[in-house]
């Protein structure tokens, strides 16, 4: 759920960022477009002013022509026309100049005379305006040209020439002459200015015609294309006629998207048009997009890194806090759990001092003292297991093992307690391929935890059923092993069942024997199964019992492949230790036969069969014989205890204070004198590992065969491996399990020593 929550939060944040970026880009686009339109407006204003300035210049020049007529003091209309002819010839702007008589008659510089009924230019001055400029077309009267031209006109103060009154002066300019002065490019040549009259004919165009027959019409161009936003050509025509400023978006017939800005030219019916391809806007906007995307990308990256760092710090902080809490809780639990048996030991010690002469009481106190010590030992073992599992430092082995043997061994270890309490035990199994590869010891530990719990919590006369099922994959390379252990015990509440795999949990509703547990077994089992890639689950109902199910997938191996004779006893003996020394159960006939073969194998003492053999009281008595044992132990108390125990069991003991002395004593002894060496791992002068190597390197017959047992409080697998690697044969963890130690040494004695 947490992961989904985080994903949802991150997704929501991403959506918010994307939306924000889109909104920002939209706003940015609008701003850029707005700025560009402002630029367009400014350019338009500037261009309109230029055009208006050009027109004013034309008006002024025309006025100068009129002034010069007075200076030349022309007397007749013909003389005036001749003078106008010369004016036009010398003008770079005007191709023809005209005088308009009060009655409307027009006299040109090329001597053409148009009567008032032959033109309509006089009407342009009727509204009282002082000047005008218009695009020439023959509708107002045909002049001496078919070229596209501009007509300028100024009002004259009544001028008398040859007895006639003239009221206006007009001039005609080829559009190609003046247009070049008006065409203004912008936006690196992509923006083009043009001027059209109300009828849509171009006064200024990027590619002007020179003949009326070839001129284009702006409205025709618009009609051929498409105008956006529902604007019609009629709307534009109306706006231009009304002298409005406005903007349209359109697409030409060639598919080019354009933005057109219109502005009226004062004193005319013209509209200035600034045409800019939409692409220009995109081009101008592109750098902003790139910069914005880059900047946002950088910001997102920085923020992401910062969030990741903060998240990591927070996570570490939370984890550290949780670990601190867990440590405190753990220490609290440990303190309680360790103090409990210690309290018993101290109390018993006190009682033993008080009743030292009471043999019966002393026997009871010693018996209870041993149980408290055993509990303390199992507690320490569990704590170590938990610590290693939680630290991820448990290295699971991957060795071939026999599922049937594993199950039998586990059952056998609990058969005694079950028999003691009258519990009916039912075992059913479906094992198609018994040989699997995995950590047999740890798997046994898990099953033992479950089964021992079942025994603990099942009342007398109850029932425990164990079902073993193996399903081999079609490939034959892997098998799913499912083990279910159900009991008819007190069961668990639903709430407790949810925490049954947490550390230090025990339902506080139990019979007296339940106090024997450390409360770590299920936690260890859970962690072990997790590490194996398997699972452990529980179904329980108060008063009805519980059912634990272990499921793990393991690779299959051919029968006994890869299993060396030396490995089997080591594993099984470890299993026995991990299962807190519980043993003495009967086995199925078939399995027993297989185990017996293993026991009979040479050099395999300590195998399950051997353990069972020496654990039999009759067996121990029969096998007693003088055997020399070298004990290398720097701790004097431990050395005395071991010596006392072994001496009472009929062994002859020689003690060495360090490894060097042990080597010396062994080398000085006759060949075959010592049957076994109990070698403490950590000793001054020379430790046990080095001493073992030294002994094995000795040039004597028994150097390679003498049994060397590592005795160490370091019980991790690497310690065990290190001991074996240094030449030791077996491993006895401290505090010593006396029974196990005696079993192993009895095996040595029975094997005829070295």
């Amino acid at each position, binding site marked *: 759920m947490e992961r989904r929550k985080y994903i949802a939060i991150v997704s929501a944040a991403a959506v918010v960022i994307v939306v924000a970026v889109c909104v920002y880009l939209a706003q940015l686009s609008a701003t850029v477009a707005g700025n560009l339109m402002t630029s367009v407006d400014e350019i338009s204003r500037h261009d309109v002013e230029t055009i208006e300035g050009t027109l004013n210049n034309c008006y002024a020049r025309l006025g100068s022509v009129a002034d010069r007529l007075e200076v030349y003091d022309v007397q007749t209309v013909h003389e005036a026309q001749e003078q106008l002819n010369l004016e036009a010839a010398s003008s770079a702007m005007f191709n023809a100049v005209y005088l308009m008589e009060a009655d409307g008659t027009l006299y040109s510089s*090329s001597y053409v005379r148009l009567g008032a009924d032959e033109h309509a230019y006089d009407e342009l001055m009727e509204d009282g305006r002082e000047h005008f400029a218009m695009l020439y077309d023959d509708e107002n009267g045909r002049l001496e040209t078919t070229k596209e031209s501009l007509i300028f006109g100024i009002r004259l103060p009544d001028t008398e020439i040859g007895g006639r009154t003239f009221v206006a002066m007009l001039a005609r300019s080829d559009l190609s002459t003046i247009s070049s002065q008006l065409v203004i490019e912008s936006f690196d040549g992509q923006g083009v200015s043009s001027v059209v009259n109300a009828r849509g004919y171009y006064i200024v*165009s990027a590619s002007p015609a*020179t003949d009326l027959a070839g001129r284009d019409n702006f409205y025709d161009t618009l009609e051929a294309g498409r105008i956006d936003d529902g604007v019609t050509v009629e709307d534009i025509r109306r706006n231009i006629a009304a002298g409005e400023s406005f903007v349209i978006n359109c697409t030409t017939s060639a598919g080019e998207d354009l933005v057109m800005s219109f502005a009226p030219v004062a004193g005319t019916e013209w509209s200035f048009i600034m045409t800019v391809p939409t692409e220009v806007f995109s081009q101008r906007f592109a750098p902003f997009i790139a910069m914005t995307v880059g900047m946002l990308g950088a910001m997102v990256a920085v923020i992401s890194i910062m969030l990741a760092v903060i998240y990591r710090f927070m996570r570490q902080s939370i984890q550290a806090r949780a670990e601190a809490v867990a440590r405190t809780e753990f220490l609290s639990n440990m303190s309680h759990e360790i103090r409990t048996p210690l309290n018993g030991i101290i109390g018993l010690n006190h009682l033993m001092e008080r009743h030292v002469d009471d043999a019966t009481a002393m026997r009871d106190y010693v018996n209870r003292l041993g149980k408290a010590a055993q509990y303390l030992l199992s507690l320490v073992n569990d704590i170590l297991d938990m610590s290693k599992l939680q630290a991820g430092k448990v290295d699971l082995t991957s060795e071939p093992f026999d599922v049937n043997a594993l199950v039998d061994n586990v059952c056998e270890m609990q058969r005694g307690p079950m028999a003691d309490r009258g519990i009916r035990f039912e075992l059913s199994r479906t094992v198609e391929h018994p040989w699997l590869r995995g950590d047999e010891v740890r798997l046994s530990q898990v099953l033992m935890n479950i089964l021992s719990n079942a025994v603990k919590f099942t009342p007398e006369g109850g029932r425990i059923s164990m079902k073993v099922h193996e399903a081999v994959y079609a490939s034959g390379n892997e098998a799913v092993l499912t083990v279910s252990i159900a009991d008819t015990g007190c069961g668990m509440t639903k709430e407790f069942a949810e925490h049954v795999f947490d550390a230090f949990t025990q339902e506080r509703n139990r019979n007296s024997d339940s106090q024997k547990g450390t409360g770590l077994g299920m936690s260890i089992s859970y962690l072990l199964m997790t590490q194996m890639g398997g699972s452990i689950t529980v179904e329980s109902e108060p008063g009805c019992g519980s059912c634990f199910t272990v499921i793990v997938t393991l690779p299959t191996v051919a029968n006994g492949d890869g299993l060396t004779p030396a490995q089997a006893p080591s594993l099984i003996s470890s299993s026995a230790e991990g299962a807190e020394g519980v043993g003495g159960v009967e086995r199925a006939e078939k399995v027993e036969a297989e185990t017996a073969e293993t026991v009979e194998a040479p050099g395999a003492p300590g195998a399950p069969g051997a353990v069972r053999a020496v654990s039999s009281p009759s067996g121990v008595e029969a096998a007693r014989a003088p055997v020399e044992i070298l004990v290398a132990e720097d701790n004097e108390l431990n050395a005395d205890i071991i010596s006392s125990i072994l001496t009472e069991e009929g062994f002859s003991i020689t003690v060495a204070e360090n490894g060097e002395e042990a080597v010396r004593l062994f080398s000085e002894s006759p060949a075959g004198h010592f049957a076994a060496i109990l070698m403490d791992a950590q000793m001054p002068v020379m430790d046990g590992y080095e001493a073992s190597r030294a002994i094995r390197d000795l040039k004597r017959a028994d150097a390679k065969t003498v049994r060397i047992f590592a005795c160490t409080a370091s019980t991790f697998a690497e310690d065990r491996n290190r001991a074996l690697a240094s030449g030791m044969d077996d491993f006895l963890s401290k505090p010593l399990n006396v029974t196990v130690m005696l079993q192993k040494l009895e095996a040595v004695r029975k094997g005829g020593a070295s």
Partner: protein
Amino acid sequence: MSSESRRIHRGMIEPAFPPTQSVVPPIPRRGMTRRAFCAGAAFLAAAGTLSLAGCNSLPFTGAAPVRLVIKVPRTGHDVVFDDSISQVETVIQGMAEGFQRDYERPVDVEVVVFEQNQYDEAVKGSFDTDKAPDVLYGDYFNISTYIRTGRVVPLDDVVAPAIRDDLFDDLWNMGVVEGRAYMMPYLARQNVLAYNKEMFRNAGLGEFVAEGKITAWSLDEWTRILDALAASLPEGSFPMMMYAGSSQGDTHIVTLLRSAGSSIYDDTGHFNLSAPEGIAALRWIQEGVGRGWFPPHAENLEIEDCSSLFRQGQLAIYMVNNASITRYGDTVGLVNFPGPDADGSATAFASGFQVFDNGDAEKLQVAKDFLSYVYTDERWLDYAAGAIPASKRVSDRYGADIPSYDLFRANADNVWDFTGGSPDTQTVRDVFYTGIHDLLMGKTTPEECAALLDAQCNAAIDEGWAKSQLHE
């Protein structure tokens, strides 16, 4: 727009003309030569495909359309049987659409229309670009200049005997250079002078008004008429056209210079105005300025000024052609330019086609096929009926409908080539009018003007010859 282009895509534009009828003769090909080439190319392509997969060096062009550019100046044009036609570019557009529709392979024809004063921009200015003309339609005195660029190809292989026989010799010969035809005549407009009958009669010159004929007057008669007009016309009216504001005045002025018998050009095609006849003619014109024959300061006028004056009844004599006289109705009479003999002179503007070699043999062949298509399809030749058709058959069909057709055909013998076969007519025109400009202003004497014109015009001619190269 200075030029407009209209790309034609097969089937997209409704033809402006009726679709080709079954009577239309097939497009002539270059005999078996091209067919043999195509067949050979197809064979080689097929063989190459089969035997040399991946080899693409064979000259097989596939079905990609050939793009053809046809350029035409914006020119007024009437057709006697189709009132919808007012511009010659419309006719060219129709030809292009018909060709594109009927041609044997995909072709994409673009017709580019340009203005009359932008020949060089439209032609030379687009050389070596994708807008270079493959076919050019225009007036001979304008487009003849391009023959000497070496890009205009001879069209003898296009002209089947039937086609050649159908074209009038005088128009055909205008396009022949060094014995090879570089221009295909389509129509012609013959230029003569027109006089305002009413003004003549008002001036007491009714005896010179002739009905139904193109008359001719002697130089003395011309002088008398002009003096009479100058003396009698009211203020603001003038006897005869004269303009030298631009190079457009050369046609009628150089023809007027034949008035005293000058040949204008010597045997080598160089100006020969310094001969006595030339100087006399120049003097005749210069004296006319002082005698009021022309509008004052005619050196500043344009042809359109004189046209307007004539149209307004302020000019008694003006140059017209067989197409433009219709606008004046019966108010004008026709007369040849004076000299060099009693029949006087006329000029003609022949218009027709050139084909350009732009380095693409495939396009060149398609361009020639276009001309074959036009000249073998009598429908397209018919559209010349409005001016004087170059086709005899069209003349036969429509001569009766063409205004004053018989008069002008009969006057064809008096037409002279005012270009003198110059290799660069435009440059000669550009320097010629400036000499006349100064003469009219009185800046130069007739002798000085003759010397100046001979020197400058002949320099232009020599330079033209020096640059001249004909397409092989």
